[in-house]
């Protein structure tokens, strides 16, 4: 068995996590969803930190939890990197890195200390105290500390959330290198579409404690925007193959905006359009009103993406419709 099966149920007050997930035991799986979706709780369940969780956690042939077994966290080979890093304040960076490595059971391979230090660029930090580290440095030390404990499954909880946007460059390249060089399957939790698209081999959508979808990053992210309320009704003829005289309903979250015409894709239609209005939406998103040759479209995009690409009123774009339903 070379896959990872996770079926966990956990009630925390009014929140219910009920996840059923099978992913290949290789590459990077991103768990994407809005805050409060249960992403962190899912990672805690896998690592064994939620003793009230019920279900199955199987990593390849190793059963960490099932109906009759609950392997305690220190006997699971789960490398959980916490969002707040949780470096040990009483130990130096070097001692933090060695903490898990010194505790690897004799029958397991011990990762090369220097390899991990090189991979994550930690050489200059070794003698430092943890209190003086920047957010990006602390996050890298935390990742290194987890890797050096020889995990079978590396769990990264929002590794980019603790650092501001400008500092993401301090971590992203390292996570990518890790992804390319490590044979360890990784689960990365994020609420940031861009990070997920850049890093993941596959995406799992989590919302309100449940898996809403799973698949390739591009297909998943197109349907992931939290608000399904905004939608427009179009004449079906704008979509190639659409029957004249009928109508289609297109949700704003199913419309993506490209500056350059995208290449061949699985999209239903690509329409040149002009941005007619920009309205703020929840969770840092913006609702664009587009005019595609007289047809009105809505697109939900991230506010900071708009700013980065200088998109605004009057911009000419390519509206990509991923999904539509008969109206």
């Amino acid at each position, binding site marked *: 068995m070379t896959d990872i099966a996770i079926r966990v149920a956990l009630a925390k007050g009014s929140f219910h996590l009920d996840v059923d997930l099978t992913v290949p035991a290789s590459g990077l799986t991103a768990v994407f969803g809005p805050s409060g979706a249960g992403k962190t709780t899912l990672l805690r369940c896998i690592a064994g930190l939620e003793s009230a969780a019920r279900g199955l956690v199987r990593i390849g042939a190793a059963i960490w939890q099932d109906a009759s077994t609950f392997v305690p966290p220190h006997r699971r080979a789960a490398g959980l990197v916490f969002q707040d890093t949780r470096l*040990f304040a009483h130990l130096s960076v070097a001692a933090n890195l060695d903490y898990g490595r010194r505790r690897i059971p004799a029958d397991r391979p011990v990762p090369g200390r220097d390899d991990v230090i090189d991979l994550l660029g930690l050489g200059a930090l070794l003698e430092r105290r943890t209190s003086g580290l920047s957010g990006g440095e602390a996050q890298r030390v935390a990742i290194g500390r987890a890797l050096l404990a020889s995990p079978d499954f590396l769990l990264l909880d929002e590794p980019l959330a603790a650092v501001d946007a400008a500092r993401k460059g301090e971590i992203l390249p390292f996570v990518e290198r890790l992804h390319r060089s490590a044979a360890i399957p990784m689960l990365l939790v994020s609420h940031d579409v861009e990070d997920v698209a850049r890093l993941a081999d596959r995406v799992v959508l989590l919302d309100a404690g449940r898996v809403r979808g799973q698949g390739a990053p591009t297909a998943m992210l197109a349907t992931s925007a939290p608000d399904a309320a905004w939608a427009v009704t179009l004449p079906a003829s704008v979509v190639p193959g659409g029957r004249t005289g009928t109508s289609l309903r297109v949700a704003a979250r199913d419309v993506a905006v490209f500056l350059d015409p995208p290449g061949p894709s699985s999209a239903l239609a690509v329409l040149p359009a002009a941005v007619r209005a920009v309205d703020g939406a929840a969770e840092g998103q913006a609702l664009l009103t587009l005019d595609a040759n007289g047809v009105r479209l809505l697109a939900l995009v991230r506010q900071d993406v708009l700013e980065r690409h200088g998109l605004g009123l009057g911009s000419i774009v390519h509206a990509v419709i991923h999904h539509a339903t008969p109206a």
Partner: protein
Amino acid sequence: MIETFAAGGWSPLVLTLKLAAVTVVCLLALGTPLAWWLARTRWRGRVAIEAAVALPLVLPPTVIGFYLLILLGPNGAVGRAFALVSDQGLTFSFAGLVIASVVYSLPFVVQPIQNAFESVGRAPLEAAAVLRAGPWDRFVSVAVPLALRGFVTAAVMGFAHTLGEFGVVLMVGGNIPGETRVISIAIYDHVETLDYGYAHAMAAVLVALSFAILVLVYGINRRWARAAP
């Protein structure tokens, strides 16, 4: 001053320091698991235990001493149990004084350690758990070092508080030279017999010692506060 001590004897001071040291060792051994449990449990009844631990802060020493006298006496539960392993009684003995001091100084040791464990929280322990450290390993390698300031405060406060003990000792220990005659009792005695010279010297030693200890505590706290991230 040296002559005064020679006349009255060094023994009350030595005995007091010995009592305080033994008491602190017992309190750390007893108070650490109690403080850990109080800091971690979600059991509702914990407030009753916390209140019981704090009782010596508010009760007159004579009340504590009275109950200890009954408990440690030949007919008391602890006294009877002790009689099975020793032919000496607990009351009016050094061992009895240690037990009394442990009870009397308990809150001064348990509370700082409990506060320190609470401020460490669960987060670093969870981090240690996913780094392959078992429960005892996490406690020794993470919880205790991170709570070290609480342990130092607890040890010093427990020591200082035992130095100043009077009422409880008087109730359960009496005034046996070399066995239960601690410094505070010795001072009381010498004042009673109008021997102010000895009382002055001993009192000055106790003031100086207590002051030095408290300076140490506040100094440590200040240094730690600065070093904290």
